[in-house]
């Protein structure tokens, strides 16, 4: 009973509540690397509350898809938040689906975002949408393969079982190592971070995600921004809790959850720091070079599976 009520609330609070903080942390760290003081850690929260209070301006030519998109995106990400193990290896919505559902819920949100970017007839939206689709068509196979490597090793596609199985895996095996490297590259592409997409730019020719959401304003924009913060946090959560599930509580005891939360914060902080370092030290690659990056990730994932099948 407690598990039915407490765990979903806890997961939603952690994912929804902490995701803007992760963004703030990355922004602050990058500012530090550039010798600036940077905005406060809580700046994303201020932005979101400001946007939520404002009214949305919707183009006259926009159809219902445009109005539905923010809700579809937000809710699809919210459902994913219930499907991944965050603090405990038990997952609230365990009975509904596995990692394949997670990947396709991401795809659903993205699909609606692309539709709405085409909906208003803005040229930038179209460019952003087509680029997003091109990139995701390359990122998705790599992501699937690297997640499937873990699924094959642990013998289940259910994220809860994967975490449970990985908890007993003491050392990182070579196949997992390759899959981890592949997934890191894919996460950077999926979350629209720097070698692939610049989240700060509004320059016409380079924006991808920003181009798609250019027509949104007010509370719609707030929902989409929040959803993209949550997407980054969820991707990082999948990464740390499937590949490095140290400290994840296997039961639902109070001290266990506290320890698990401390480990979680440290691990997410480490990967957020890694993203900030990568963003500060690399330039955004040219659009036509992105297939090389994602192709590399795909090859690493293929090698991971082959390594597991042939050698182990």
């Amino acid at each position: 009973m407690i598990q039915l009520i407490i765990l979903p609330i806890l997961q939603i609070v952690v994912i929804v509540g902490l995701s803007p903080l992760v963004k703030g942390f990355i922004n602050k760290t990058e500012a530090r690397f550039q010798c600036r003081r940077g905005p406060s850690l809580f700046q994303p929260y201020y932005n979101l509350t400001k946007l939520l209070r404002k009214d949305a301006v919707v183009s006259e030519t926009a159809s219902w898809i445009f109005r539905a998109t923010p809700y579809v995106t937000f809710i699809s990400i919210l459902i994913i938040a219930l499907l991944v193990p965050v603090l405990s290896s038990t997952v609230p919505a365990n009975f509904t689906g596995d990692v394949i559902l997670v990947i396709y819920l991401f795809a659903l949100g993205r699909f609606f975002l692309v539709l709405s970017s085409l909906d208003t007839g803005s040229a930038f939206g179209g460019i952003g949408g087509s680029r997003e689709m091109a990139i995701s068509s390359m990122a998705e196979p790599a992501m699937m393969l690297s997640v499937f490597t873990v699924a094959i090793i642990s013998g289940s596609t259910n994220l809860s079982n994967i975490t449970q199985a990985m908890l007993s895996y003491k050392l990182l095996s070579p196949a997992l190592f390759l899959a981890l490297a592949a997934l890191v590259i894919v996460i950077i592409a999926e979350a629209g971070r720097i070698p692939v997409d610049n989240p700060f730019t509004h320059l016409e020719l380079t924006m991808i995600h920003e181009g798609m959401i250019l027509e949104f304003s007010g509370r719609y924009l707030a929902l989409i921004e929040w959803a993209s913060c949550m997407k980054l946090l969820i991707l990082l959560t999948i990464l740390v809790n499937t590949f490095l599930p140290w400290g994840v509580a296997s039961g639902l005891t109070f001290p266990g959850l506290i320890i698990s939360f401390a480990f979680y914060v440290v691990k997410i902080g480490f990967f957020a720091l890694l993203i900030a370092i990568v963003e500060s030290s690399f330039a955004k690659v040219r659009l036509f070079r992105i297939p090389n990056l994602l192709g590399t990730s795909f090859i690493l994932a293929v090698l991971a599976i082959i390594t597991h099948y042939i050698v182990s």
Partner: protein
Amino acid sequence: MKQHIIVNSQTIDVLAVMMLMATVLHISTSRLTTCVWAYAIRSFILACASGLIAYYSGIYHIFITTGITLVIKVVIIPGFLFYIIKKVGIKKEVESYLSFTLSLLCSCGVILIAYYATEPIIRFESTFMRHCLPVSIAITLVGFFTMITRKKAITQILGLLAMEDGLFFAALSTSYGMPLIVELGVFFDILVSVIIMGIYVYRIKETFETTDTGFLRELRE
């Protein structure tokens, strides 16, 4: 003791896979300096692996080869290649006869061939260092592949060096390395050949205003 060996063989396996990842970096990057960095990183991991193998196997002459690897392959050869790149003033990126994506996919295929070819051998092997043989064969083949498909002379040198790395690692992981005198000879060979090829790159550049070896096939007055 048994547990000890399993743990350290897994460490060496992970190092082998890291070498493979450095090789993938070598084929997937478009910058010449990153290629050289990939070589330096792979050589460093190779030195770590050979140090571990020396420590756990108790064959101490491998320590000597580890030290020479660190000095020659991690410091001298990459430093020399950086010096040549600077001196010749190569600004263009890596050029290949195949398109980039195609060459990535081909290298992936080559690596898969290496895995399938070594599968019957490692199937009957004990658990000790099972990943090393396929990885070393893969590095050798990928080095060969980059030698064939890349246009610039420096990238061809890097391909040769990758082949040498792969062979060295294969010898090390299957039979704890060759006799010390052979290793020394190979190191000396590789050092001299890199220096000779560096001079050769410089001469090509002086004669043709480019380091593209494709021009060597053209007849000239």
